[in-house]
């Protein structure tokens, strides 16, 4: 990776609306120079392997990018079929930032072509969360109603079969306000729980806090909002940057104090670790860099404790069979599969590691009317492996993947923390 000289001006001074700003943004684009056309990205792209509608990451990334001019309307609509899973960048042996190039190009395309209402809504889960939580039973009934879902599909393009989460009717933040942390603890951590936990899976947040406390951490839950990833995925870069800045402001005091920031959504933590810096071009934001360096995935963090001998390994047997799927964006962390290391500590637990790249949902991609079928084809291999293993539970680190997989397989799907929580006897 080449060094990035400092860009003149603030990030918005050099960005045009959705377009990436600064030199790093251009260096993501510039990484297309490394492409030698080897086809390795194509062979691993889950989307282009199931549909000819998407010409593949090599084509829409480094190849087409040579034909794009910033400010010109984009000429290739097929780019929109990229799911943003990021597998192409992971497997590229030459360091081409393919997924990042695609993401930036798509944002520029949507800037000129316009962003549909559906994508604006899907880009703001906290909006849905805030609206739906007080009226959770009604909201859930609406989402479950087949006729209303058909209408939604027609009107805003949300596929009728897309896996939608259930509103919990309460927020995790509320629980956290009322929760008393232990009096003493070996260390402090800040919990970056994400929208999914807050509005749909507050129980996961509770379990995470309990598990961390069980292992000697005093957990603080700062006020926080969305990380901006759904906005970024839907091409609304300006708004996404605003969300990132607000979240960073919340987490900054912890980073400054040397407190580790732990997250349960591998997508959201990846956003802070790298995507906001590379795709949104916010590398020059010193506050973001400070927070970014302090962020850990919860399994990553627990394994770090384990390596220091500070993890409680007195776990109860769980005589069950589970499958484990590492989401694409978990793989994007480049930390291996710490969930497997942790699950290996649970006596009598049989873990079947699935060997499939992507479940298909890719955040909000698989919810969309025109992409749902593709998403289901992408995930077909994974679903078949899960069904073949016949597990009691399926384990996966990312919430949107869990909802999608659970609906497709019928197998209850949980975060690794849920199993560890149970094995720790905290259930």
């Amino acid at each position, binding site marked *: 990776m080449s060094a990035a000289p400092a860009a003149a*001006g603030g990030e918005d001074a*050099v960005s045009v609306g959705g377009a990436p700003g600064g030199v790093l943004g251009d260096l993501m684009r510039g990484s297309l*120079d490394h492409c030698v*056309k080897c086809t390795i990205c194509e062979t691993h792209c889950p989307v282009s392997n199931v549909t000819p509608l998407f010409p593949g990451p*090599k084509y829409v990334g480094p190849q087409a990018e040579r*034909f794009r001019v910033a400010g010109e309307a984009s*000429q290739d609509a*097929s780019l929109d079929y990229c799911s943003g899973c990021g597998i192409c960048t992971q497997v590229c042996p030459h360091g081409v930032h393919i997924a990042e190039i695609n993401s930036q190009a798509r944002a520029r395309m949507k800037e000129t072509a316009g962003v549909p209402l559906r994508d604006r809504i899907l880009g703001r889960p906290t909006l849905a969360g805030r609206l739906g939580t007080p009226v959770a039973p009604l909201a859930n009934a609406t989402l479950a109603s087949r006729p209303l879902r058909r209408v939604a599909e027609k009107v805003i393009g949300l596929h009728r079969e897309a896996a939608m989460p259930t509103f919990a009717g309460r927020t995790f933040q509320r629980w956290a306000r009322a929760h008393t942390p232990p009096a003493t603890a070996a260390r402090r951590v800040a919990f970056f729980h994400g929208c999914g936990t807050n509005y749909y899976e507050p129980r996961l947040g509770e379990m995470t806090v309990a598990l961390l406390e069980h292992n000697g951490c005093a957990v603080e839950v700062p006020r926080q909002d969305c990380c901006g990833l759904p906005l970024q995925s839907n091409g609304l870069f300006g708004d996404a940057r605003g969300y990132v800045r607000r979240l960073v402001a919340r987490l900054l005091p912890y980073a400054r104090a040397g407190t580790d920031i732990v997250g349960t959504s591998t997508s959201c933590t990846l956003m802070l670790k790298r995507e906001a810096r590379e795709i949104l071009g916010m590398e020059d934001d010193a506050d973001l860099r400070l927070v970014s360096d302090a962020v850990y995935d919860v399994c990553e963090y627990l394994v770090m404790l384990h390596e220091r001998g500070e993890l409680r390994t007195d776990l109860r047997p769980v005589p069950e069979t589970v499958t484990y799927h590492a989401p694409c964006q978990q793989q994007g962390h480049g930390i291996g599969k710490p969930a497997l290391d942790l699950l290996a500590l649970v006596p009598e637990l049989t873990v079947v590691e699935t060997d499939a790249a992507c479940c298909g949902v890719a955040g909000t991609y698989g919810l969309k009317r025109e992409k749902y079928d593709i998403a289901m084809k992408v995930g077909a291999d994974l679903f078949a492996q899960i069904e073949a293993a016949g597990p009691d539970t399926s384990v996966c680190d990312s919430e949107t993947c869990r909802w999608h997989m659970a609906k497709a397989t019928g197998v209850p799907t949980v975060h690794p923390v849920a199993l560890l929580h149970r094995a720790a006897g905290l259930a």
Partner: protein
Amino acid sequence: MTGLSADVLVIGGGATGAGVAWDCALRGYDTVLVDRGDLAEGTSGRFHGLLHSGGRYVVKDPSAAHECVVENAIVRRVAADAIEDTGGLFVTPPGDDPAYGDRFLAGSAEAGMPVEEITPAAALAREPRLNPGLQRAFAVADASVDVWKLVWGLARGASEHGARVLPYHRVLALRRSGDAVTGARVRNELSGEELEIETGFTLNASGAWAAEIAGMAGVEGVHVAPGKGIMIAMNHRLVNTVINRCVMPTDGDILVPIRTVSVIGTTDIRSAHPDDLPVTQAEVDAMLDDGERLVPGFREARAMRVWAGVRPLFEDKKTGDTDSTRDVSRSHALLDHAERDGITGFLTITGGKLTTYRLMAQDTVDAMVAQRGDDRPGTTASTVLPGSSEGKHYTLGTRLRDREAHLDDDQIVCECELIGRRRLEDTMRARGTRNLDDLRRSLRLGMGPCQGGFCMYRATGLLHGIGRLDGPEAVGSLRFFLQERWKGVWPILYGDQLRQARLDDWIFQGLLDVEHLPGDDAGLPPGPDTVPDAEAAVT
């Protein structure tokens, strides 16, 4: 030997020659155009692609600058589809004298060139890769020109008005009848057949080779100094605006975005002969340093190809013999041999720059018309070329958009340049192509970053498949292509490009074993002849 007759014979199929043929044809003359190779294989095919705003000359040569201003506006109109309206910037990087900018502004005013000084921050907002330490910046009306579209547009236009355009016809001798030049004997390089052309007037538009042709007419004392300049095409557009260094014209002071690449140029070294254009390591290093000055990180970016172009510099003996040919006059030179040498029916046009091709052509044809005593005024300033009738400029995304429309019914053969199978096969059939190297020049097949690593096997199979070549010929053509391509690559083979070359070695030699066909001895390229060392195409 067969023969043909015409009113005018134009020798040289570059921008000037094609422009002359177009002008003549429009004025109703029965015209024949010949070139020893493909059209635009000489200087035109090897320049950096810049349609000058004139800014480069405003201080040194304001009248030349003014010529550019006027012609720039005309060419944008009549050859719209060959022009990409990139705009241009003159910038003062750190270390250069900012005071030159004032002379630049003054010269611009004198030359009538539109210019606007903008802040460095505005320049960087427009082009984030520029040197952040820029001191000054000026916006001008530079553009980049696709010389193939231009030259083939001119040729097509001329043909539509009855001209005969004959590439691959080499002039062997000029015919004299007393003091008049009455035509030429040419050889069809593809068939070997010789042809006698009888004309009333012969126009020598062979640019850097003008002296050779003039000599055939018995004209003495014409010296055209070949001013060699190297250019490096960088793999992608580091900038989308033409960037000029705001100094007195020097080496490596232009960075031109043209199609998918950005071209840094150029050097200026007297060469012995227009076909002898070696690329030296020292020049390459100098260009990379010059690029680094304009765009920090240039040396980490991927250099795709290097080639040498040749400027035709008509030597006025009064300036003397210097290594740097930049001091020799850059305006064009129209030689009236009747007046100069007592030889009628013959004019030579040489020197000049591509931006003023139309003016050069017009001056030439005007002179011929005057000598013939005809009354036929020129109309090229207002006649739009075929393909440009909608007045729309070329945009980079065109090929991408066209490919998008055929994703589900065509195959991509050359991925880097987005060339589809149908187009390739159609071209092969229509042109009677017998070697892949021709396609390299015209379609830019294999001219992208992969250096043919993936597309050349496919293209070889297709060329064999349409029955044009047999097995060993096809593989021979592939080897020949690889050898030709290598010429423009090895002087800049470092970093990413070396990685590509090595991968291509693995594919061609390690996987396909192209260098060992049954029946080969040393396993090396039989292949068609080519113009020696002619690193033909600009990207």
